[in-house]
């Protein structure tokens, strides 16, 4: 197991290194380059050359990349061009806010998704199953940004139950903190639950027909013990995979949701940086989000191998 994790960790670091090169290349080389976006469209070639020399942009791209990635490895993501501050604390602060959203949303997606999947699998083909399946089908068709706006319309506009936008720290009270999280979290959860629910349902339906479930029934175990201890353990394997994929979807959703609800997280920071062409912030933001996604996948793989004794990774059968 230890060897497997070390191997995967090395692979992730390689992928992240490649992603960092990709990010750097796209943001630095494609048209609409840094100096041009700082000076605006009326810049003279002389001015552009002067700015490029000042920022070191006239050096070969590989040297610039080495400079940047060397800094990143030491935790230095450069300076924000617009706010003239170091990028790292800016990104770190925003990431803290985003992680609150992401963790709560992911926990709810896991619980609601698995529970509703099992619930409808046990009612396979009956009314309850059809209701859950239809709800899943409908909410799959609703884009996140539209969910966000409709929930704003209803809960902040029409009913005035919740604040429309913004964020308050938990140190200023749990109530205001939670009230700002409700709508963004609901939006994120609504988009992701169907993935988990549908997959859990179909794998649970299959599992409940398996030999060992029949055997467990014959042994006289209670139905709830069979469902929650025996069948679910195996039915959950595909669910874990989709949960890892959903972390990636969640990271995209966070960009949309934070923008709609003016939530000061990584997603909104990124959109702001893109609007202002603040390239160091764009580079850091995309890299950090990609890293979170990569490590979520590693976590899922480890969980998978722990739950599935049939898979033993490379001599880890000790």
């Amino acid at each position, binding site marked *: 197991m230890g060897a497997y994790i070390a191997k995967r960790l090395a692979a992730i670091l390689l992928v992240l290194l490649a992603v960092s090169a990709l*990010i750097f290349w796209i943001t630095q080389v494609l048209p609409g380059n840094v100096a041009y976006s700082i000076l605006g469209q009326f810049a003279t070639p002389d001015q552009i050359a002067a700015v490029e020399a000042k920022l070191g942009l006239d050096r070969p791209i590989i040297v610039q990349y080495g400079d940047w990635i060397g800094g990143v490895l030491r935790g230095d993501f450069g300076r924000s061009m617009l706010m003239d501050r170091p990028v790292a604390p800016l990104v770190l602060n925003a990431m803290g806010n985003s992680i609150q959203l992401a963790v709560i949303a992911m926990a709810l997606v896991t619980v609601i998704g698995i529970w509703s999947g099992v619930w409808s699998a046990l009612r396979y083909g009956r009314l309850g199953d059809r209701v859950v399946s239809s709800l899943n089908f409908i909410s799959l068709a609703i*884009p996140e*940004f539209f969910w966000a*706006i409709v929930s704003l319309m209803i809960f902040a506009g029409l009913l005035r139950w919740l604040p429309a936008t913004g964020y308050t720290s938990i140190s200023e009270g749990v109530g205001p903190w939670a009230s700002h999280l409700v709508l963004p979290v609901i939006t994120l959860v609504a988009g992701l639950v169907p993935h988990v629910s549908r997959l859990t349902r179909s794998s649970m339906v299959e599992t409940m027909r398996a030999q060992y479930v029949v055997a467990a029934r014959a042994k006289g175990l209670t139905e709830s013990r069979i469902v929650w201890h025996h069948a679910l353990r195996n039915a959950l394997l595909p669910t874990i995979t989709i949960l890892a994929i959903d972390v990636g979807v969640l990271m*995209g959703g966070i*960009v949309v949701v934070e923008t709609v609800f003016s939530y000061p997280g990584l997603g909104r920071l990124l959109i702001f940086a893109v609007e202002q062409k603040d390239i160091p912030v764009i580079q850091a933001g995309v890299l950090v989000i990609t890293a979170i996604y990569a490590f979520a996948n590693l976590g899922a793989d480890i969980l998978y191998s722990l739950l599935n004794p049939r898979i033993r990774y490379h001599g880890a059968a000790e």
Partner: protein
Amino acid sequence: MARLNRGGRLPASLLVGGGLFALLVAVVVAAPWVAPYPYDEMDIMAIKEAPSAAHWLGTDEFGRDVLSRLLIGGRTSLFLGAAATAVSLVIGIPLGLLAGYVRGFVDEAMMRIIDVLMSVPPILMGLLILSATRPSVWKTAIAVGIIYVPVMTRLVRSVALDLSREEFVLAAQGRGERLPWILLREILPNAWPSIIVEASLRMTFAVMLAAALSFLGLGVQPPSSDWGLMISEARPFIDSAPWIVLGPGLALCVTVVAINLMGDGLRDLLDPRMRGRA
């Protein structure tokens, strides 16, 4: 192909979804002729009017007819979905066929590159590509298409990998057929069912991703419009004139439902092994 027409009955979801989708396409293609008003005609006497007989879906903050704008915006949204899917097919099919059939180093190298590309979540990839250039409709289509090339390549590769062990491919090898012939005349025709099913799934993702990028201000730019941009522009008025945002939002949902139903139906029809999978 014999199993396709077994019983000659088409799945209901394919008929309903395909019918709805065909209707949507017909309406937006005919938009300039069927729209009740010119989409950019402002009427300062009818600003933010609720739906009525004159304006079925109401008017926006400039007194423009929401239904007419919806139809024109739908052209862009559906075009983006279709064009992006086409881009991912045009690049993904040859790459996938090659990787799956040739295997070895080519396959290994391509799969590692794909691992890297797929480790960046789609919206962020779109943000990255579009932030580097001045956005436009066709650039959005290409960006979304490129984002889905890795998924498409992987799917085609896995199908090609299975097919390359089939007897008709071995026979073609034995006859001394050349590589392009084997890929295009032996493997591709048999890979189509899986590719079509995947393409329909990709199209829903493409329509939604393109709309999301436009919503975020990264995709379609004014004065052009698509449903994502319409929703974004209507945000200040969600309390005073909710119909401006509901029109394009619901249109997007209906489109996605139609394509999803069509995709489910196609899967049942073309790919019986996949039936019942989520």
